Every structure is written in C-alpha cells, then in structure tokens.
C-alpha cells in the first residue's frame, strides 16, 4: 500500500531536517508552494524553500551532464559502480528505506559504507565502545532534567527549537519549569539565539577543545582527589566548584553535545570525560548524557548499518564479509588516499550534505536541488522524504522514529526505488 494522497492540512507532520525531529508542523499547499505553520525554524525554512525551488523547475536524471531517462541513468550508475573495484557508498542522508537499499547495494558491490557525518558519529562511538555510557533521550531531558550542561553553543544552531520544545515545554512530568542551563563555550552571550538567551544561561568560558580539562577537573574533585590547579580549561576554580555543587545538588543533571562541534583530533577523549563524570554522579545520585550527532539521518544510518552488518558505519563489505574499522574505512580518508575508485553519494533531505569534490567517478542520488560543485558522472534526483514521499527516520537520540509523510504531488521516485533499480542492474558477484 502506498501513501497515495498527500497529507491534508488537518494533520501535523514530522520534520526530518534536524536531529530534534519536531512533529508539530502543519503543512499548507498553495499551488506547488509548501508552507508550514510552525514556530520559526531556519533549518525547516531553508529545507522547505529548497523543496519549493526544486519543484518549480523539476530536475531529471543526467548522465555526463546530459538529460537521460531514469532507466538509462540507473544503468549508467550500475555500470559505473559495478565496474569499480573499491567503491564507497556514503552520504546516507535519507530515510530508512533509502539507507537500507543503499546498504544492500553496498553489500552487493563489496563497497565500504560511511555517512556524510561519519566522523562525528565515530567520535561518539569511540566513547560508547571504549567504556560505555549512561544516556537520556530528548523526551527524558524534556520531562526530568533540572540542570543541562551544554558543551559547545553550536548545539543550539543545529537544533533551532531545542530551547522551546525541550528546555521550556509548557508542562513537564515532574511539574518543574525546565532545567537551569550552563553552556561551556567562549561565545559572547549576544551571539546566542534569542530563545536561548531568554533562559538566562550561565556561560563558562571554556572552549570545546578544552572542555576535557574542565570535566576532568570536576571528576577529580568529585572523586575527592587533591586538585592543585586554580582552574581548568579556561574556567576558574570558583566557577568549577560552583558547577560541581550544582551537578551534585541537581536531581537529574544532563550533559549534552553535538559531536559535530568537536571536529578536531582525539576529541573523543573530551567526551569520555563527560561520560566518566556522569558515571560517577550516578554512584549516589542520578545524571545522564545527551550525546547527539550531526543530523541528516546519521542516527538512522548508524542504526540500520548496525542491524545489517553487525557494526556501525566504517564497515567494508569487500570479499563477502562485513569488516569494521572506522579508521581504515573512513570515507573521507579512502577518497583522499585514492583507495576508493568510485563514489555513490546519497543525500536527499536537503541540498546539503553535498557530494565531496573528488576525482573518482561519482553517482549522486539526491535532492533535486543537490548542491553540486562539479557535475557528477551520473545524477539521479529523488524525492525528499517527509515532503515528496513517506518514510521512517530516527530522531537524533536514536530512540523514537518519525513517520514522515508525503505532502505534495511530485515527479520523483524515492531513493529506495532508484537504488533498488541500480541493485537489480548490478551483475551478481559470487563472493558477495
């Protein structure tokens, strides 16, 4: 059964465009133009505008820059990918059906799989796989957290409605008003979004790159170790002692971050300090982490890859077996080192993430308005999940799934359909 008729304006629908997964959008269709009655959200506004623009001049498949039929484009993609010796399947910014078909295709090709935000994902995973962690879902933060410590103010830019939806809901299960907010960042207060400033956050001048020092200092103090330093990571002793006192006094403090804000080597060691601090706080009290990724379906890509391969992304299917090595199989590294000889880039949510500028032959299956720095060998536009077709996608915390709806008539196939057709056209390889 297909979701044949576009959702009416009577329903509210979920949004796939950031990790927060709001589902209170009321869509309106005026001709072909799509509008949402929802509190202002720059990410949704941009995504809706891009979807509108795409439909005003609908892109079709192209091979070598020239218009081609869908079937010809799929055949060209199958030939290109099937002829490669070490293809990379990445991007994976799609709904679950698209991601799952991409995984089947990668398996059949003996390809390596990664996500556009694979580095951020692996940063969190390194902590998880090293020592494990204790986490809370977005819903738990909304209902029970009474002190939120955010590592890096960029989180608020990535989740524009975090303050309104999660930190200051109209009602909470515990009857409270919402958490006090502490932000570790050197940003000036006036650079914070208005919705965040309204929460009167305390800004500790600790840059994300030095957050590990501050967190380690807190852990040491909590463990009763002698701490000689007069502060750490840019924060003074008094401020850190005050923060520790608040963490100990809170009923359910939560430390949150987006791993994308920690884009530098060995950043997982910083996040590990946060995990350790939360473990210690749970010795006698309660606390949790809210470790988020970068959005663009990274949670769905990670989860689906795990149940298909037994491992997360950074997995290669060469030789007929799943081989996990997030360092060796890092997509960006494979491309830079010349160890991949073809790229399939799947990105159908927004014009970004765009395919990387690479010299290897590229098949781009994506948003009709996908931002292309150079014309790929094959480009196949597909519908946007949650606007052009129904789909399932994880909320950024990986727990809830969003039932995305089809909101408008459109000419594009789904990513799953296109990738499924390419898969059919790939000659079977014995070893895979």
């Amino acid at each position, binding site marked *: 059964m297909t979701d044949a008729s576009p959702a009416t304006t009577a329903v*509210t629908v979920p949004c796939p465009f950031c990790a927060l997964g709001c589902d209170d959008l009321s869509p309106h269709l005026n001709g072909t133009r799509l509008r949402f009655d929802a509190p202002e959200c720059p990410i949704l506004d941009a995504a809706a505008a891009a979807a509108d623009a795409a439909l005003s001049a609908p892109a079709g498949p192209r091979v070598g820059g020239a218009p081609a039929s869908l079937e010809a484009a799929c055949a060209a993609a199958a030939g290109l990918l099937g002829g490669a010796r070490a293809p990379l399947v990445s991007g994976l910014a799609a709904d679950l059906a698209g991601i799952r078909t991409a995984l089947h295709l990668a398996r059949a090709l003996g390809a390596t799989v990664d996500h556009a935000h694979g580095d951020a994902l692996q940063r969190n995973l390194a902590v998880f796989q090293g020592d494990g962690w204790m*986490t809370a879902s977005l819903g738990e933060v909304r209902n*029970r957290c009474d002190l939120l410590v955010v590592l890096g103010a960029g989180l608020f830019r990535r989740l524009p409605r975090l303050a309104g939806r999660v930190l200051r809901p109209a009602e909470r299960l515990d009857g409270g008003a919402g958490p006090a907010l502490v932000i570790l960042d050197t940003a000036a207060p006036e650079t914070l979004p208005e919705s965040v400033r309204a929460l009167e956050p305390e800004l500790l001048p600790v840059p994300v790159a030095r957050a590990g020092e501050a967190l380690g200092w807190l852990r040491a103090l909590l463990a009763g170790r002698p701490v000689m330093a007069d502060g750490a990571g840019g924060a003074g002793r008094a401020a850190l002692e005050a923060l520790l006192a608040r963490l100990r006094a809170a009923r359910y403090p939560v430390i949150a971050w987006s791993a994308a804000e920690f884009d530098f080597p060995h950043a997982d060691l910083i996040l590990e300090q946060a995990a350790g601090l939360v473990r210690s706080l749970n010795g006698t009290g309660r606390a949790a982490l809210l470790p988020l990724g970068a959005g663009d379906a990274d949670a769905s890509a990670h989860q689906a890859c795990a149940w298909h391969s037994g*491992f997360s992304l950074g997995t290669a299917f060469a030789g007929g077996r799943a081989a996990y090595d997030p360092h060796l199989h890092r997509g960006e590294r494979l491309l830079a080192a010349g160890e991949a000889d073809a790229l399939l880039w799947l990105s159908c949510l927004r014009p970004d993430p765009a395919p990387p500028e690479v010299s290897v032959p590229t098949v781009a299956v994506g948003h009709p308005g996908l931002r292309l720095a150079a014309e790929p060998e094959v480009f196949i536009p597909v519908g946007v999940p949650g606007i052009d077709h129904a789909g399932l996608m994880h909320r950024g915390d990986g*727990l809830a799934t969003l039932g995305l709806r089809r909101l408008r008539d459109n000419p594009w196939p789904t990513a799953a359909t296109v990738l499924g057709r390419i898969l059919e056209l790939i000659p079977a390889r014995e070893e895979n």
Partner: protein
Amino acid sequence: MLTRLSGGRIYDPAQGIDGEVRDIYLRDGRICPPPADPAMADAHYDLHGQVVMAGAIDIHSHVAGGNVNNARVLMPEQHVAQQARYPGLPFGGSPWSTFDTGYRYAEMGFTTVVEPAVLPINAGHAHAELADIPILDTAGLAILGNDDFLLRLLREGAEQATVNDYVAWTLGATQCLGVKVINAGGATAFKFNAREFGLDDEVPFYGVTSRRILNALQRAVVALGVEHPLHVHCNNLGVPGNVDTALRTMEAAEGLPMHLAHVQFYGYGADGPHGFSTGAARLAEALGRHPNITVDVGQVLFGQTVTISGDVMRQHAARGIARPRKWALWEGEDGGGGIVPFRYRAGNFVNALQWAIGLELFLLVDDPWRVFFTTDHPNGAPFTAYPELFHLLMSRDHRARWLARIHPEAADACLLRHLEREYSLYEIAVMTRAAPARLLGLGDRGHLGPGAVADIAVYADIEDRGEMFRAARLVFKDGVPVVRDGRVVNPVRGRTHAVNPAYDRAIERPLAAWFDRYHLQRLDNFRLDPGRLAETAGAELVIH
C-alpha cells in the same frame, strides 16, 4: 503445487502423534489432507528414518530493537574476526546481523521468534529490524508498566475499563502481539533514584505499588481477550533469595493466566556458605500449585555473551560485573534499558549454579506444556547455543560430564546429579512447538494438522541430540524449502504478527492531550499504521 513428505517419523503433540511414520502433504503454503492418490504430488521428499516436527517457536529472544542494536555496536571486538558463514546470501558475511539471526535460527528448524521487549516509543525501529530478519515470522511484545500515563491512571484510581482501553490502544499503536512488563514500576523508580524495588514497593511520586501495576495490566490482558498472557519480568532479577519474589508474584496473579519470563534468574536462594543457593525445587513445586502460570527458563550456558535488558535498575546494579569492563545504560520515554557484557564461567560458583538451576527447572517441572525453552537470548546464552541445551535436556550422560567440570561446590550444592529425567523427542516437540503456539495464540502453527502453515523441520535421527538440532536436514517455511542439509538455500521474507483488540476510542482524547502535554510526538504520529509500516519499513503485518 502439492508436495508430499513421506516416511518421516512425526512428532506432533497437538495431534497426539508420538513418532508414528506418516506422510504429510503441503499445498499453497499450508498443510493439507492427503489426496486420494499419493502420486498426484508434484514434489516428493523421502524422509524415511528422519524426524519431522512443526517449525520451532521461540517465545522470548531479544532479536530486535534499539537495545539489541546498541549491544551489537558496543562490542565490535567480539565479532569483528568472524568469517562469512553464508556466502552468497544477503549479509551472509555479517555476524550478529538481523540476517544472520534469521539464517541461524532457520538452520536449527526455528520458523517463528518473539522479541519480548518493544518499548512503545521504539516500536517503529523494532518493526524495521524485525522486517529485516529473513525467513522467520516474528512478533513483538509491547512493554508497559513504567509508562507515566498508566502510573497516573492508577494513582488517580482510574477504572479497570480505562486501563483496558489504554492497553488495547497500545497494542494497536505498537503493532505487537502481547504485553510485557519489566520490573513493574522499577524503571520509573530508578528515575527517582531508587536502587531497589520489590513487589510491594511504591513508585515514588505515583504512590502505586509494583503489585498494583502488575494486577492492572494482567486484568487488562485477560479482559481484552489477548491470547498471550501478561509476560512478566519480575522484580529483583538476579538477586540472591529472589525465589521469594517469584513465588509472591505467582500468588499475585490470583489464579489468572500469567507468564513468568526467564525464571532461572529468579530461582535463587540465599543459603549456604556463599549466600547463594538453588531455589529451583521451590519454584517447581509452586508451579505445580499454580496451573495458571507458565514459565520460560532463560538457561545459562557458559561463554561470552552480553546481557540486554529493559530492567535499567538491575543493569545499573550489575555494572560492576561487566566483562569486558564496559556497559551502557539509557533512559527514555516510559522506560529504559541497559547493556552489560558478561562471561559465564563453569569454574565460577555462582555461574555454575545458575547453569544448574536452569536445568533443574527444566527437569523438575514435569509439564512440558508450561515450561518453555529459552536462554533469554542473549542474556543467559546466545540462541546459537541451543543445540547444547537440547543435548543437556536429552542426555543425562552429557549433564554428568559437565557436572564433573563445573565448580565442585556448585555441583554438590545442586540437585542435578539426582535428576535422571531425559526429555523425549515428543516432549521437545511440546516445549518448542505445540505449547509456544498455544501460549502465543498462533493456532496456525506449532502443529502439522491440515490447515497449519507449512512451517516444518526435518532432522536426522542421530544419537547426539546437539548435532541433530544444530542443523535441520530440511526446513520448509510456508511450504517453501528454505534449508537443506543444514544450510539456508532460500532467504524468503517473514511476516510480523500482531493483535489489534477493540477498545473504546474515547481513550484517545485524554491520550492525545497527554502526548501534547508530555511527549515530543503527537498521538497520531506515535501510532504505527500497518500500511505505512509496509511502505516505509518493509514490514508485512498479520493482524490477529
């Protein structure tokens, strides 16, 4: 197409057939009556000397859902070095994938498996994963009992009819086959920093006891006519002396149907020099007095595994025994869970006694219709260890060999030496086929009578029962041969079974308001629609 299976020895307890040689005919995915002329068959399998049973059914195995999936990711080092087991099949080189799960279950002759812990907010994910388990039919049990809506209903003294409507709504919204309760109220109590939680303890803030939650859910399941009884993970899992908890929970059932899951983990006394002793005899005796109660065992087998549970309080308490030394806990809307890797060792007194207690339960409970074959996969052992468990149940000699190897004090402290019983093939067929189908309300399987789905397992009749059940000679799924000579030959797709009991839709008004007030999702977006699940997750639902 008509298929004839001739000459096999049939074990079909639902029809009282105990090893008789009979022919079986299949048509259009179902078992059919014999035709007038056997020569009419289009295909013929000569099964002389082989054992024929319905496809096996696992009522409690953690095969899908976020908790399971995160456990996969937690320990890549455990399966990173494994080689491809099924070259040529989709994801046949992916150890511990959903695909591998389907292939390995099918090879042992299993055709239906129940995931017993679907947290409603994670149900969409669980269904997507279940849909990617090839060959097997599946079902989920929806977790209730730590959900704030129910706790508030009970605090406010709501009528049972309201609870019934809410439970029915949940089953439809999550597309599950039954209701599971995990340490009723315990996960919520843990959110309020409680570290212990017993049957008569009150959930902080809500002031309702675990017993009250259990009773309300059990009555709802009975009132709604859901075939599968309330599936209960009791309080105090793993705690020495917890056999009392299990016995009190049986009493709390007040004669109504209730299934107690993985009771081995509740078969513990607190006697002896180590403060840990077998309570299996007490449990078995109590089961004799409570014909309304069924149990599955959750057998422990030695080796590395990972414990996966929605009992977040218990998993936090167990963090110190994690091997390797890492563990993960999460809390979410209406529940939580934890992942604690563990290695059961034969030379460890407690582990050895856990192993013995499970076997004692299997052997002391003399009604195979009420004791079910599980390891609580992967908590007691991975399901791939089932052949060893069949062997232990069916061979006293095999048990004796192990008794000489386990921790000597444990071997002396248990009753196992004195239990001579060996399961017969007929009893195995009861425990793994006929009884599970009856317990789940799936009347079209677990037997070989006309009209049943043609899910059939054929085994070589060899003395080593472990080897026999490790690799079925032939397995049919819906009449299609999917395994030959112990190897998957056709990775067909399975279906997922669910119930949608009727309810008074008036409950949706307060529920919608509740979601608007306390959830990040609205009611309409929370509920799973079968058509949309098929389209977006590839899930083919069968609603009973």
